[in-house]
């Protein structure tokens, strides 16, 4: 049902009156005008050598060929995949576990407010705080030295691949609460009777979780997974503040490379082509997941 076209559309060709399109029109027009139209411009730019100053020259698919021969971009693609895997693995699963615990086990659900605090801060603000935590004079080094785990402070953000994991920790801190709240909303719709029935049946907790809670969470899980897939490909603020893709462009993701090429180096054409490729990957991943979700249903 997530992916289908609705019950009615499949049966009789009983489509509704044209006036009903007015319900969809405001949202559709806003998106077309402000989000899709600029992308057409970007798509065009990606086939040119525009540098903001000189007139655009059409150079065909040269930019796209360059992407796959640029060693920096290959590192970016690798880092982007690391990000996607870990963002799907850590903050999302943690969010689900927290939601289930808070709903079923915990004595007070006010505890959830704690995990919501990071959502009150901007990406840049969180970047500043976590930059400071991992900095040489910062929190982590001081704690580790206090417990004697390390002899001298380390520069976590300069070590590859620790810097990427440090930033993943920051994003985990930022987004776990968001995932948790969405899962809590989903859990709210599971009737208590179902869970109690399962208890009477004598199924253990793990069984209840995998066989009853997870399937019933399906609609909200789709939202959360899509949100995390898209979000993890697009992550920018925190990387930009914490390492700016450094040292030596080793922690760049595609979104950061795109920004660097188009804005720092003023290769608008090349940057646009990275953006197009990135968007295409997200589109395929998103649609692909929606398809899987629909098939499982």
């Amino acid at each position, binding site marked *: *049902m997530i992916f289908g*076209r*609705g019950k*009615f559309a499949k049966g009789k060709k*009983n*489509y*509704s009156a044209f006036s*009903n*399109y007015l*319900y*969809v029109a*405001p*949202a*559709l027009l*806003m*998106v077309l005008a*402000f*989000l*899709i*139209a*600029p*992308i057409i411009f970007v798509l065009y730019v990606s086939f040119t050598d525009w540098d903001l100053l000189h007139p655009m020259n059409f150079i065909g698919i040269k930019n796209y060929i360059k992407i796959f021969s640029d060693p920096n971009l290959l590192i970016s693609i690798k880092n982007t995949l690391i990000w996607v895997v870990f963002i799907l693995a850590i903050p999302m699963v943690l969010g689900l576990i*927290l939601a289930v*615990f808070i709903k079923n086990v915990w004595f007070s659900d006010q505890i959830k407010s*704690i995990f*919501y*605090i990071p*959502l*009150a*801060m*901007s*990406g*840049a*603000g969180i970047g500043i*705080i*976590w930059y*400071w935590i991992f900095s040489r004079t*910062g*929190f982590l080094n*001081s704690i580790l030295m206090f417990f004697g785990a390390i002899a001298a402070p380390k520069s976590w953000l300069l070590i590859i691949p620790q810097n990427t994991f440090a930033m993943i920790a920051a994003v985990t*801190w930022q987004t776990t609460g*968001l995932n948790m*709240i*969405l899962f809590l909303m989903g859990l*709210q*719709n599971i009737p208590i009777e179902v869970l109690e029935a399962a208890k009477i049946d004598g199924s253990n907790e793990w069984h209840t979780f995998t066989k009853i809670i997870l399937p019933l969470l399906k*609609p909200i899980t789709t939202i959360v997974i899509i*949100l995390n897939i*898209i979000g993890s490909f697009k992550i920018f*603020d925190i990387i930009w503040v914490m390492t700016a893709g450094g040292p030596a462009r080793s922690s760049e993701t595609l*979104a950061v490379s795109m920004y660097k090429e*188009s*804005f720092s180096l003023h290769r*608008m054409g090349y940057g*646009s082509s990275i*953006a197009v490729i*990135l*968007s295409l990957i997200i*589109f395929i991943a*998103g649609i692909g997941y929606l398809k899987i979700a629909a098939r499982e249903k």
Partner: protein
Amino acid sequence: MKDKIKININKSILFIIMLLLCLAWLVPVYFLILISFKSSKDYASSAFWAIPKSFQLFNNIKYVFIETKFIKPFLNSLFYAIFGSCISIFFSSLAGFGLTKLKLRGAFFIFIIIWSGMIFPIQIYLIPLYKAYLTLNLYNTKLGMLLIYIAITIPFCVFVFRNYFMSLPDDYIEAAKIDGCTNMQIYFRIILPNSFAPVAILVLFQGSYIWNDLILGMVLSGSNNVRPIMNALSLLNAVYTGKNVPVIMTGNLLSGLPIIIAYLMLQKYFIQGLKIQTAGE
């Protein structure tokens, strides 16, 4: 007996895990608050976990207010966040209703177009939007800012509403139709009253998204009368100035307050599930 002990052990392990997680989430916040109590000299010359030598929070707040001309951008952002998220949610819930319940031809195609607004990295919009805004005279206007904030939050809202409305049973709508309700009446009487939870969550998510936006505000607006709050705060951490860490942290604290307040106000709606499901059946 054995079972009980096992459960207790399980529970205490869970308790410890939860405690550690809570700590991990609270520690950065604790230091954020602690540092914003310090003076810059105190911060520079002593260990960061040291208790502040003097209470400097109000001085830091004063500094933030003077340095960033805080009030106007603050009110602007409040305006964008409240109106932007509400209008966007209204449009989106209409669209979600239309896409799921009104048997539109090509509903899925329309949905994919709207949804694809979510996938593009935001930085790529800057140059085309800036160019377009300059030509359309939307640059540096409140209307222009509001429009882009509405547009950029629509795709996610539509996605959530479409998913949510699909799980609403059709029986009630059919029943209402037999009673002679128009689509508009169905939307206002059945759909909206059952959507408190997603509406509250989306107000919070999209409101805080708009509130925390820096880059769109920087590119599409110029004067202090239009610019959002994050632009003003970024002055504290700009490239050519010294980094007064306590003031930066105070700025972060201040900018987070409205969202915390919104959260406290809205959170009781999060747990309002489907009225139909709980009341009926």
